């Protein structure tokens, strides 16, 4: 496997412009001749599918939900960043670039991050033109808020439903192209494999989730926009359907998987309430703008929060990080919460929680203002916990939320498998080992609206894919493999449900490969995952037929892939013998518990090549160079 990142040379401000000029174009009349498969209809996939269709390509778009507008992007709450500097507070493309590289703890590719910051402004313009109802000031101008890891206000938002509004805008554009006949949309259709012909990705094999029919689609290029893999932890803030199948199956066909151990544990989620729990709910990070995080100073203090006097509270983020305070980046805020709970100072059931208190903000601004800013989040909190956050502080705890790792892509967003492009959360680019708040929506839309539509044209113009259809024997062969795997899943006919395996894997990953990792925990995970996988293939029970809607079968297939992927993820965490961003190795910390990077040995992206055994992948490295933002110890103090 060759890693050529294709990073343009020259001054960083000009790289993307120069590259756009140098890339070959496809003549408008020839665009109709090219077809593209886009798997995923979230912000990344939806924006790419619509834009590619506008340019004249023939697009086939797939998602497993019943409609493209339900992709998991819809759940994003807090906002989307852009270097508009509307607040006149010193923001710039360079500052957004700088914050993102530093926030990512120097494990991302500078050129990609710079480009992301450059196109960020155009995203907001585009969304407003589509009718996205962003929050406004009384004078009619767009409003902004600040988010963790930044000292400027550059986050655009639509109440606590920014993802929903962006996705509805993007979906509207997609609908327009569907109506025009330029996009053919296939909802309730799950991609189960990639088809490679003559070394290039030329199609996918899918299952119709309503009829169970296995069929395939061919195209000149395949784009994966299938989101992240946080559900490897079972309990996460992701939607129930999120999974690793698409990227894992592509990995098995030759796409390198980069940094799978980089996962983001979000500091502000509602703590788990019991064993029945099926998912965790995020409370937007924007709450940290006005809420203050604290725990009692004394371990084991069981008094109600209102009974604990000011002097006996520890506002630990404000104490430890005076310049960022409650807006410290996510990895730092999460770890601090774990530290407080590990020291016995946690609150709520099981002592796994910390307070997020709005008392002072309500006193200062009034309940009305807080309600206007966060009303829907407060309601959601109350519905779930039966507690009123206007009266008592919220209880929060970290939960798996986002995955910075993903399929490796070059500057053109193409994976190591020619023709296979990867965008949005599914790829590894831009966020290094820790993503800053409000940057995922920005990245998904940057990839889909403003990057891929250019780079894919260059791929067509230079590779000139030959016409091909699904009668090709390779399509038939992969279809057979997919059919056989489904038959095997049903044939096991054991005693345990797919969900019980998923839960067990999730617990194992959370304990051993979660917020803090050690050689010991990782080795434990690595010995246990293959056993669990074996148990799965001996004892899983999938009832119901294959030629009908069968939710147990869908889940079983996804769990089977997670069980393979988890092993590569733990391997990656073991091999990366340093702490950086969200990857915290207990062996590598400063005396005050901060992550300690090892730039000498680990200033690279680790890219795994599939070998047939998920526990023994081949390691490749893309060295990372920091020409502009110089390597430094990240400090938010």
């Amino acid at each position, binding site marked *: 496997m060759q890693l050529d990142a294709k990073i343009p040379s020259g001054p960083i401000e000009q790289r993307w412009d120069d590259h756009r000029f140098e890339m070959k174009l496809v003549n408008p009349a020839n665009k109709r001749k090219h077809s593209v498969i886009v798997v995923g209809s979230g912000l990344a996939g939806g924006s790419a599918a619509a*834009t590619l269709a*506008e340019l004249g390509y023939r697009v086939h778009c797939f998602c497993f*939900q*019943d*409609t493209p*507008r*339900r992709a*998991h992007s*819809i*759940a994003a709450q807090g906002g989307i960043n852009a270097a*508009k500097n509307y607040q006149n507070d010193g923001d710039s493309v360079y500052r957004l670039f700088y914050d993102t590289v530093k926030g990512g703890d120097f494990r991302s590719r500078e050129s990609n991050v710079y480009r992301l910051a450059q196109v960020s402004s*155009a995203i907001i*313009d585009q969304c*407003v*033109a*589509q*009718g996205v*109802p*962003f*929050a*406004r000031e*009384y*004078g*009619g*101008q*767009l409003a902004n808020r600040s988010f963790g890891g930044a000292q400027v206000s550059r986050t655009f938002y*639509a*109440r606590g*439903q920014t*993802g*929903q*509004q962006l996705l509805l805008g993007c979906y*509207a*554009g997609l*609908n*327009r192209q*569907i109506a025009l006949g330029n996009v053919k*949309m296939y*909802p309730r259709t799950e991609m189960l494999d990639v088809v490679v012909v003559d070394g290039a990705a030329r199609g996918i094999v899918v299952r119709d989730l309503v009829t169970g029919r296995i069929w395939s689609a061919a195209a000149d290029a395949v784009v994966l926009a299938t989101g992240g893999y946080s559900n490897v932890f079972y309990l996460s803030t992701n*939607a*129930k*359907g999120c999974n690793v199948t698409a990227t894992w199956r592509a990995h098995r066909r030759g796409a390198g998987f980069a940094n799978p151990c980089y996962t983001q544990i979000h500091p502000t989620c509602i703590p788990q*309430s*019991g064993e*029945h*729990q*099926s*998912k965790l*709910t995020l409370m937007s990070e924007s709450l940290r703008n006005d809420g203050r995080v604290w725990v009692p100073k004394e371990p084991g203090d069981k008094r109600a929060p209102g009974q604990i006097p000011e002097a006996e509270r520890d506002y630990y983020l404000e104490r430890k990080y005076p310049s960022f305070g409650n807006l410290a980046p996510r990895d730092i805020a999460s770890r601090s919460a774990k530290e407080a709970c590990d020291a016995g100072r946690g609150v709520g059931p099981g002592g796994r929680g910390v307070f997020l208190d709005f008392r002072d903000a309500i006193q200062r601004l009034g309940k009305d203002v807080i309600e206007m800013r966060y009303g829907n989040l407060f309601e*959601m909190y109350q*519905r*779930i916990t*039966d507690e009123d956050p206007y009266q008592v502080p919220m209880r929060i705890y970290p939960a798996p939320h986002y995955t910075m790792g993903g399929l490796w892509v070059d500057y053109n967003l193409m994976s190591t498998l020619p023709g296979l492009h990867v965008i949005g959360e599914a790829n590894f680019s831009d966020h290094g080992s820790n993503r800053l708040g409000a940057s995922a929506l920005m990245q998904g839309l940057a990839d889909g*609206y*403003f990057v891929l539509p250019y780079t894919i044209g260059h791929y067509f113009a230079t590779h000139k894919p030959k016409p091909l259809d699904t009668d090709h024997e390779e399509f038939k062969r992969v279809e057979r493999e997919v059919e056989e795997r489904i038959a095997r899943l049903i044939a096991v006919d054991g005693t345990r449900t797919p969900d*019980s395996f998923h839960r067990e894997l999730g617990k194992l990953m959370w304990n051993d490969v979660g917020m803090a990792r050690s050689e010991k925990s990782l080795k434990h995970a690595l010995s246990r995952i293959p056993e669990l996988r074996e148990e799965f293939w001996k004892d899983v029970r999938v*009832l119901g037929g294959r030629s*009908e*809607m069968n*939710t147990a079968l869908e889940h079983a297939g996804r769990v089977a892939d997670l069980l393979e992927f988890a092993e590569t993820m733990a391997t990656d965490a073991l091999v990366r013998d340093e702490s950086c961003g969200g990857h915290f190795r207990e062996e590598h910390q400063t005396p005050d518990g901060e992550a300690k990077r090892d730039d000498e040995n680990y200033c690279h992206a680790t890219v795994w090549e599939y070998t047939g055994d998920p526990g023994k992948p081949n390691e490749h490295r893309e060295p990372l160079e920091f020409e502009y933002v110089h390597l430094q110890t990240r400090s938010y103090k």
Partner: protein
Amino acid sequence: MNLTLNVWRQKGPQDAGRMETHYLKDISPDTSFLEMLDLLNEQLMGEGKEAIAFDHDCREGICGMCSLVINGVAHGPQRATTTCQLHMRSFKDGDTIDIEPFRARAFPVVKDLAVDRSSFDRVLQAGGYVSVNTGGAPDANAVPIGKEEADKAMDAAACIGCGACVAACPNASAMLFVSAKVGHLAHLPQGQPERTRRVGAMVSAMDGEGFGNCRNYYECEAVCPKDISRDFIGEMNKDFRRAALGGR
């Protein structure tokens, strides 16, 4: 708590379907409604019976994928709450709960509790967008939009497209959904150039999908998990009359 559940089972669109009774024990009041169904499914699969199919994804009340008519009410007894956000503390120990799919001619049952709501997508494809391509948009602050208008647009845009309004309506009308979508763009300057064409196209697509007429029962507003106001229906009717007159 212990519960008796009467659940709709239907093998496929052509099957007649029937209610099936199951008993579930020791459910914590902190369990969500869908987690309760997960537990039922685990129990069923343990007994060698196929799981009940139901739609869900985000479980945060935002994707609009969950549905269900619970004791005769779309999304169940709690006001402004989706099924996935409903918790068992809204019920009592010993309760009997009827669980049925959203029912409407335009929402055929796919299996058990899952229905096909693609008619909504087709209504939106008829005109629920601003015709702009990617690129070339003016600066986002070029056109100021007063906060009140922007808030109105957002009130309408909050619709999650779940279809509860249709399921609750005695006529299975989609007026609340369509008017929210039309209203979102009608309250923004970006939506003006196509305003008349949009409303005409979307209303005729809605009629074509087999949704019923609005007879002002407003059951839709009562069940809407996002509190979409019936006022949008009135606004849309006005726009539609103008469209029908061919004016602007």
